[in-house]
């Protein structure tokens, strides 16, 4: 499994409230959620994001509530992967469970810049910044998580078992 795309870069403590504001939680339609994704933090995200793009952020990405709408909105925006120094733990679980690949790699998260083109190999955890020509080693997904992500989420994974 691989991903390649352009980078949107954010800082520390991006919380679930800015990923998808509570005022839109009356919908669980991924497309509608995606249309408001990140809007309190970055008005341009929705306009610019393309299928395969990558979000890179610093510490504690996804902190706050247990709302699953947050990773759903990101995934439905077309984002192929989120790289961060660290993730808040419920966001981490929720992302895996809905099939959004996320990787912790502090070095890559600090050094990769907005607009860089980045390639990720999920089996090895290798992150390659094509723009800068620098390679990073993130944590590879254990087999179990790869299976969930390949099945497009925990529910499909259970159904296939």
């Amino acid at each position: 499994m691989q991903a390649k795309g352009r980078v949107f870069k954010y800082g520390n403590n991006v919380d679930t409230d800015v990923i998808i504001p509570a005022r839109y939680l009356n919908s669980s339609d991924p497309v509608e959620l995606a249309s408001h994704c990140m809007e309190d933090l970055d008005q341009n995200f929705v306009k610019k994001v393309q299928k395969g793009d990558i979000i890179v952020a610093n510490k504690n990405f996804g902190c706050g509530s247990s709302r699953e709408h947050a990773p759903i909105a990101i995934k439905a925006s077309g984002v192929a992967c989120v790289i961060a120094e660290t993730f808040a733990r419920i966001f981490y679980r929720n992302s895996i469970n809905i099939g959004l690949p996320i990787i912790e790699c502090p070095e890559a998260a600090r050094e990769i810049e907005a607009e860089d083109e980045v390639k990720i190999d999920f089996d090895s955890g290798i992150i390659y910044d094509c723009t800068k020509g620098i390679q990073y080693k993130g944590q590879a997904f254990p087999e179990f998580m790869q299976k969930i992500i390949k099945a497009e989420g925990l529910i499909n994974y259970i159904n296939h078992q």
Partner: protein
Amino acid sequence: MGMTMTQKILSAAADLDHVKAGQLIETNLNLVLGNDITSPVAIHEMKKITKKNVFHKDKIALVMDHFIPNKDIKSAEHCKCVREFSYKYEITNYFDVGDMGIEHALLPEKGLVVAGDVVIGADSHTCTYGALGAFSTGVGSTDMAAGMATGKAWFKVPFAIRFHLIGQPSIWVSGKDIILHIIGMIGVDGALYKSMEFVGEGVDSLSMDDRFTIANMAIEAGGKNGIFPVDDQAIAYMKKHSQRQFKIYEADPDAIYEKEYTIDLSKLKLTIAFPHLPENTKTIDEISEDIKIDQSVIGSCTNGRMNDLRVAAKILKGRKVKKDVRCIVIPATQAIYLQAMEEGLLKIFIEAGAVVSTPTCGPCLGGYMGILAAGERCISTTNRNFVGRMGHVNSEVYLSSPAVAAASAVAGKISSPEELNA
């Protein structure tokens, strides 16, 4: 290599002899919890699962607490969805208006969680049950759906931080001050992914209610769970509330902790978290200016238990809530409500000029009553003071113990109970 208390519980639930931090495991679950906000999403997800039944009708708890009695049409629809699901699958532990309570106060009280259990809940404060020596943690709705269908969940075995509590807290210093002090010290991501293990002789001097408060806020430091050893007090609590067999796990002497802290409870002071993060703490003597308040909230899954109400009543007895302050008291469960009535606490609150609500999360998440207007300020015994948590984005929430919230309601500004006598 030894295991921590949390690791031991997880390894037993995964049918493994040994686990180590970082390992991915699948465990059996003793209980899966959801509330009126998260359960409808999980029920929707469950419809996509081919296996069409719940794993065990006695091991699922669905608690209507955030917006009940229903505050509007949308919350009524949510509860209806959960109610219909509960009837269809004959869920034993479905709690609605009448036998309601805030989930994290209700479950231990009903004896649904005991030591040694592994519990997931689609609510971030599910970590509360660590007070009983159980492993419990918050998850999202998909986890809840999968848990309801299979009775299993995946976990990454957490690293641990150990907190040695020594000494005895002085008068008015409570579990809330201890956990606010810890969050102020390590920060809101200070225990990210980790288990917070509380040990030491200081634990003996903490009531079960204090321990629930401390475990409840483990998530506010980013923790996966917070856990206490099972002592005589915990055993007495479980025997009183539950018919279930409990299992006591103890950390191995050579268990590995990433960090260790020693906290002398006798040195702690009344602690308040300033807006807009639980880590922005100050002790009461560090506050030099007058912080005038518009509202005081005493309740929630953190501090709506019997001892919390008793402390508040002790302070409010024979006193009056300041004219321009709204004081809202919310017993966390029907049983607590009734007990407070029998002990005459409700009379004290009402005579002091506070209002007493039926059990609900209410103002805690700004969803339902007690909402703040722009520029207003609230002292609250709840657990989060994020921007807009209790209402308008320009309102402010200060987190404190019941003693400080009650004293502040009387003084009209953030105060300690001792200042009232001066």
